[in-house]
């Protein structure tokens, strides 16, 4: 108990004093005064300086200057506190950054649109739109490279879908047989499964469309990943969930580190005169890579702890209990409500229970946030650009859902009989709305 209360007792006044005496350094630096004497010392002859005598001479000089600065700081300080909200203007958004959620909404909008159609032309258009925006607006940051990975993953998915359709046959009845694979006779218990046999054009086309749809969904997710730093999404999480979120993000950054380690160690294998390609090379560096990764995790955990991760504020027992009750009650309510909504019988009381549970859970999270003393540094601003970007994604999704009513044939061309896909004018035009971010979003200017 003493362990917990003492630091917090310490901690609160501490920040207070920081707040009071820090502006002076801000003022000093803000004025662009040359740093005190150490800089002069450092910039002179590389190491020829800094004796006890020199230091003794330096101190008073610093003091003399500090006095007027401190007064200036006090003068500044008073009005600042008097202003009711400390920030009347919203903080300027960071250069080259848009609210991460806007990118995700845009990408999810495109993904929703993609999930509504199997028209190869429309799917290709959506992929092209996402790709163009990524090419136009991504930065040089490491996470931006994930687009290529997702693109390749999409191709793999497409290939797997095709291979399965060819090998295992397809329930699509078709008349245009492309070629016939030797059929493997299967025992009686495997009835309904077919290996090999005739491959029809209809089955291949159907599989191609299906696979392309999945691949397009993946590409949309990849676009969001490479345009928005996953860590920035954290800033939008409620305080109570922040620490869990950090853990998730740290786990996510684990993978790129691992890849970098593998690359480095494979390069090192060359130095030992071994081949750096092939599965064996990968396996042999596996253990050192894992060892390194574990060591780094431990070091990171130590560093995070030393930097105050997991500090908690003192909250009254009543608040803590209320938090627990609200969260658990809320989650139970959500479960019950969802069940009732899905089950045929309880449609009447399902919605109110669900809403009530949701409200209780949100309140619980809010209260829980009090336990964490965290503040947020420059949270992403949701500005006009964010509205445009998110709006364009939502518009594409909406247009495609609406199009299902008037152009369902064009969106979902039948595989049987084979028909050449046509590009429906209006849905195609609507998908182009997804290009808005390539103009509306700030240009990625990392570096």
């Amino acid at each position, binding site marked *: 108990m003493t362990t917990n209360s003492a630091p917090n007792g310490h901690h609160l006044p501490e920040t207070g004093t920081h707040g009071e005496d820090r502006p002076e350094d801000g003022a000093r630096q803000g004025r662009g005064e040359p740093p005190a*004497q150490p800089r002069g010392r450092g910039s002179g002859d590389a*190491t020829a300086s800094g004796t006890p005598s020199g230091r003794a001479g330096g101190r008073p000089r610093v003091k003399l200057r500090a006095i007027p600065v401190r007064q200036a700081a006090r003068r500044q300080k008073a009005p600042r506190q008097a202003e009711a909200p400390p920030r009347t203007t919203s903080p300027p958004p960071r250069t080259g950054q848009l609210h991460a959620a806007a990118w995700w909404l845009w990408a999810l909008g495109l993904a929703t649109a993609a999930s509504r159609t199997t028209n190869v032309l429309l799917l290709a258009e959506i992929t092209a739109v996402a790709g163009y925006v990524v090419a136009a607006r991504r930065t040089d940051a490491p996470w931006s490279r994930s687009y290529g990975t997702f693109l390749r993953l999409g191709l793999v998915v497409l290939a797997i879908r095709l291979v399965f359709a060819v090998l295992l046959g397809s329930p699509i009845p078709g008349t245009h047989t492309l070629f016939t694979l030797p059929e493997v006779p299967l025992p009686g218990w495997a009835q309904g499964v077919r290996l090999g046999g005739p491959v029809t054009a209809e089955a291949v086309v159907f599989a191609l469309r299906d696979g392309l749809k999945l691949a397009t969904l993946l590409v949309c997710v990849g676009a969001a990943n490479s345009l928005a730093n996953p860590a920035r999404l954290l800033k939008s999480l409620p305080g109570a969930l922040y620490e869990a979120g950090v853990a998730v993000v740290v786990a996510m950054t684990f993978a790129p580190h691992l890849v970098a380690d593998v690359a480095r160690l494979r390069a090192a294998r060359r130095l030992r005169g071994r081949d750096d390609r092939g599965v064996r090379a990968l396996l042999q560096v596996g253990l050192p890579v894992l060892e390194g990764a574990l060591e780094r995790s431990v070091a990171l955990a130590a560093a995070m702890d*030393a930097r105050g991760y997991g500090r908690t504020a003192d909250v009254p027992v009543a608040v803590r209990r209320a938090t627990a009750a609200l969260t658990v009650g809320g989650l139970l309510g959500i479960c019950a409500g969802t069940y009732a909504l899905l089950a045929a019988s309880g449609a009447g009381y399902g919605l109110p229970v669900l809403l009530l549970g949701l409200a209780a859970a949100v309140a619980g999270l809010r209260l829980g946030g009090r336990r964490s003393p965290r503040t947020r540094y420059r949270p992403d601003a949701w500005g006009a650009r964010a509205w445009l970007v998110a709006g364009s994604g939502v518009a594409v999704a909406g247009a495609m859902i609406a199009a299902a009513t008037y152009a369902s044939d064009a969106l979902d061309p039948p595989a049987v009989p084979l028909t050449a896909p046509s590009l429906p004018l209006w849905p195609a035009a609507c998908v182009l709305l997804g290009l808005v971010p390539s103009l509306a979003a700030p240009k990625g200017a990392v570096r």
Partner: protein
Amino acid sequence: MIRFEQVSFRYADAAAPALQGVDIDVPEGELCLVVGPSGVGKSTLLGAVSGLVPHFTGGHLTGRVTVAGRDTRTHRPRELADVVGTVGQDPLSHFVTDTVEDELAYGMESLGIAPETMRRRVEETLDLLGLADLRDRPIATLSGGQQQRVAIGSVLTVHPKVLVLDEPTSALDPGAAEEVLAVLQRLVHDLGTTVLLAEHRLERVVQYADQVILLPSPGVPPVVGAPADIMAVSPVHPPVVALGRLAGWSPLPLSVRDARRAAGPLRERLADRTPLAAGPAAPGELLVRAERLGVRRGRVEALRGVDLTVRAGETVALMGRNGAGKSTLLSTLVGLHTPAAGTVTVGGAVPHRTRPAELLRRVGLVPQEPRDLLYADTVAAECAAADHDAAAPPGTCRGLVADLLPGVPDGVHPRDLSEGQRLSLALAIVLTASPPVLLLDEPTRGLDYAAKSRLVAQLRALAAAGHAIVLATHDVELAADLAHRVVILADGETVADGPAADVVLSSPAFAPQTAKVLAPAPWLTVAQVTRALEAAP
């Protein structure tokens, strides 16, 4: 501010205590330097201040450590986060977020500092450490020196009363190290921050220290005192102190300025002598040849039109800022990068077109992290693998290890070796194939003076045996001691290439301490002076 009372500490599975009888008081606003050979418990001592020892490492701590009045026994590291800022040896393992600005703000966010204050402090710190241009950069794309500055900045923003730094300058080039030290000086003098710092490169820091804690050997109580007093007895000391001890100056100078003031008589004594010419015995066969070499890494032009020739028996030091292209040049010489322009031949082969097993016999590289070369779980297995890789007779590598690293048992795991031992093991592995060209990337990082002088002796013997050696280093003392020629790279271009004495003496940033003290005479190392004084009465 920091008080150790009768502190002893033993790691959970260790037989002997890592620290014993530590009784230290570091007053507020002091820059306190922890010195001692590798493995004496410097990092443990620092960890005890931030509370990571024993809360994070485990082990048994007796006695009491208090920081700003808080007992580390009852306060976990996170509860000390507002008074103690810690930066470990490896800045990369310190980062929680992925861009510079977020990283600077992270600690403050954890402490719940008001957003306006955070914003102001981030801006201050960006200016203070010269990071303003890098504010939006992903940390992974920064150079080592920049990362170190970000790591220091990330704890500075919290305005801790105590800063604990473990080897903050050992990965930095001389200029960047000066900047970091100037910042520390400024914090100590302007804000009264207490700084506790462990560092092997004493020539960079000792003149700034107010107090020195010397850990002579593991488990022995530390000696605490004024820098000059401790340096007089310390087994680890910078060249300027060695020179002072040699010449019998009193008080012992710690900075080049003090030494120069005292060095008048010594300069006169040395006036009619010249240092032994430090050149290769005879210009040997041309082994490394790079012409108009250009290398691109991603969108960055890492090297542009670099010319380099190295002959057998020659030792060349590559110097220059962090990120100047030194490591890229070395990697290109072993074929890890394909040049975008120009030609490169090493020992008659084009490295990037030669099979690794073949190249091994022509050129060997000891990378910055020697650990990367080690895969096996015992020294013996590592040696056997090296013999196999190099198709050398069994026992070749083990013999080299016995020479370079006497007294290391076969069964030790390479990870349990000290930094210096690991380097020697990696060197032995590379030498197993007896390549005529030997490349070393930052070999002295993390080495104490004893390990360093062993390495210097080893490399000198190799050069005398006809190896061509190229080492990339920030360590001006090492370059002065070892190199026949110094090549300075800046921004991927060669800006200087010439005999070590000429290059090193012409620029203060790269001049070793002895040269600064005895300028304009071309003395580079204390050893040269010693020999000259011994040669004549």
